[in-house]
């Protein structure tokens, strides 16, 4: 059907400039698709007959005179001349429509009736394509000759009431695509999750607000870090950047038995690597400060930098026994559980100088 419709499309697009060519195309198409019991009469042929032009008969006689005798049958010509009954009009064969009558038809009222036919054909085309399981895009084309022919055939065979019922009945409802349904379902699920997450976050914020009072006073940090005076600054500069007497002991911290030489303090220069003695001494100083002012500072215990190495990085891995005596009550004077904070340092990346000859060469 579609193959038959294709050449017709081309013809129609080109227009009715060549009438004889068009009529021959019609004949060919009707020969291809028209069943033998359905005379392939287009509805504008019928309309032409209904229009019933007064000069029809004489014109026809003229045409008959110049026509080759083989094509029409004399019986049909007689019937046509009488022009009385509708059935005879319907069985009118195409060759009778001469180019002139086509031109007449186009000139008089082709647009209005054609538009009506178009809509009907489109509806029926949809219906038929639905029946055949086709989509409406290829079956519902207005200029599809095959569909129009079928519509004509159906119209001829059925009553007006049937046609009305056929047109009134809606085409079967199209199901929504499955992927749309899945997409909607997934969306709704995600929405649920998002809602639960939002609720959780709101709850967390509420808890935080309850736990931490908003009007917490800000600590005055200026007392903790008193600025150095000019003399102290110059002393620090001379220790850090002076190059003489590197072995000179600057300070001896008696409780921890730590001697700090100039050389060891050089690790506090810009971009220098820290060493364990400086850090351990600072931890000792923090410990002393906390003992000095227990009301102001938290009770802390500071492990030195070797604690974790001794505990977890030994030859046998985790070894509690090796550090068991580090925090006994007799040694510390307080239990570790009494401390508010227990601080130990992890040395994650270190360079272990065997013999530490590198430090001496600094």
């Amino acid at each position: 059907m579609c193959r038959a419709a294709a050449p017709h499309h081309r013809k129609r697009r080109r227009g009715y400039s060549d009438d004889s060519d068009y009529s021959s195309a019609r004949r060919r198409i009707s020969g291809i698709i028209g069943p033998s019991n359905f005379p392939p009469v287009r509805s504008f042929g019928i309309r032409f007959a209904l229009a019933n032009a007064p000069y029809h008969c004489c014109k026809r006689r003229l045409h008959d005179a110049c026509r080759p005798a083989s094509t029409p049958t004399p019986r049909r010509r007689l019937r046509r001349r009488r022009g009385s009954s509708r059935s005879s009009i319907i069985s009118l064969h195409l060759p009778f429509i001469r180019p002139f009558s086509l031109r007449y038809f186009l000139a008089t009222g082709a647009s209005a009736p054609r538009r009506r036919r178009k809509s009907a054909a489109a509806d029926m085309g949809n219906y038929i394509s639905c029946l055949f399981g086709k989509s409406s895009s290829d079956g519902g084309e207005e200029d599809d000759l095959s569909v129009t022919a079928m519509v004509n055939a159906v119209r001829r065979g059925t009553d007006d009431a049937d046609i009305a019922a056929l047109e009134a009945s809606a085409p079967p409802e199209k199901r929504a695509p499955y992927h749309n349904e899945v997409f909607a379902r997934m969306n709704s699920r995600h929405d649920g999750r998002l809602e639960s997450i939002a609720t959780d976050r709101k709850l967390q914020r509420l808890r935080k607000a309850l736990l931490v009072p908003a009007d917490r006073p800000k600590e005055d940090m200026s007392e903790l870090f008193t600025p150095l005076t000019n003399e102290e600054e110059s002393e620090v500069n001379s220790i850090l950047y002076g190059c003489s007497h590197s072995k000179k002991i600057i300070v001896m911290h008696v409780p921890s038995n730590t001697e700090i030489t100039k050389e060891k303090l050089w690790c506090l220069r810009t971009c220098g690597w820290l060493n364990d003695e400086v850090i351990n001494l600072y931890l000792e100083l923090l410990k002393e400060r906390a003992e000095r002012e227990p009301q102001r500072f938290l009770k802390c215990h500071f492990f030195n930098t070797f604690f974790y190495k001794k505990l977890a990085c030994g030859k046998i891995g985790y070894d509690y026994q090796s550090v068991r005596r580090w925090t006994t009550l007799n040694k510390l004077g307080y239990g570790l559980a009494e401390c508010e904070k227990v601080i130990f340092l992890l040395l994650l990346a270190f360079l272990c100088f065997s013999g530490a000859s590198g430090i001496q060469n600094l």
Partner: protein
Amino acid sequence: MQAPAPAPEEDSKAGVKSPEFITIKVVDQEERRPVRHTIRTTDKLQVVMDRYYSEAPEVTYGTGSFYFDDIRLKGDKTPAQLKMEDGDIIDYFAPQIGG
């Protein structure tokens, strides 16, 4: 530190030696080379440190730190001051550089 060991036990351990002698073991972190040294409880610990430096040729003299539990040792201290017992272990830690 635990309570000091009772006197008779100490005597039995150091049966041959004099009662004031104790044996101290010095280990480094890798426990490659435990150095045992027997000193009097009244001797300075510098002797033990020197012994360790001499036993470990790759360790430069005077570097690193010796810890008895979490107490950093100094050469002029004696085992008696630190309440050391026979068989106690001194840890040697190589200097840690990092930051």
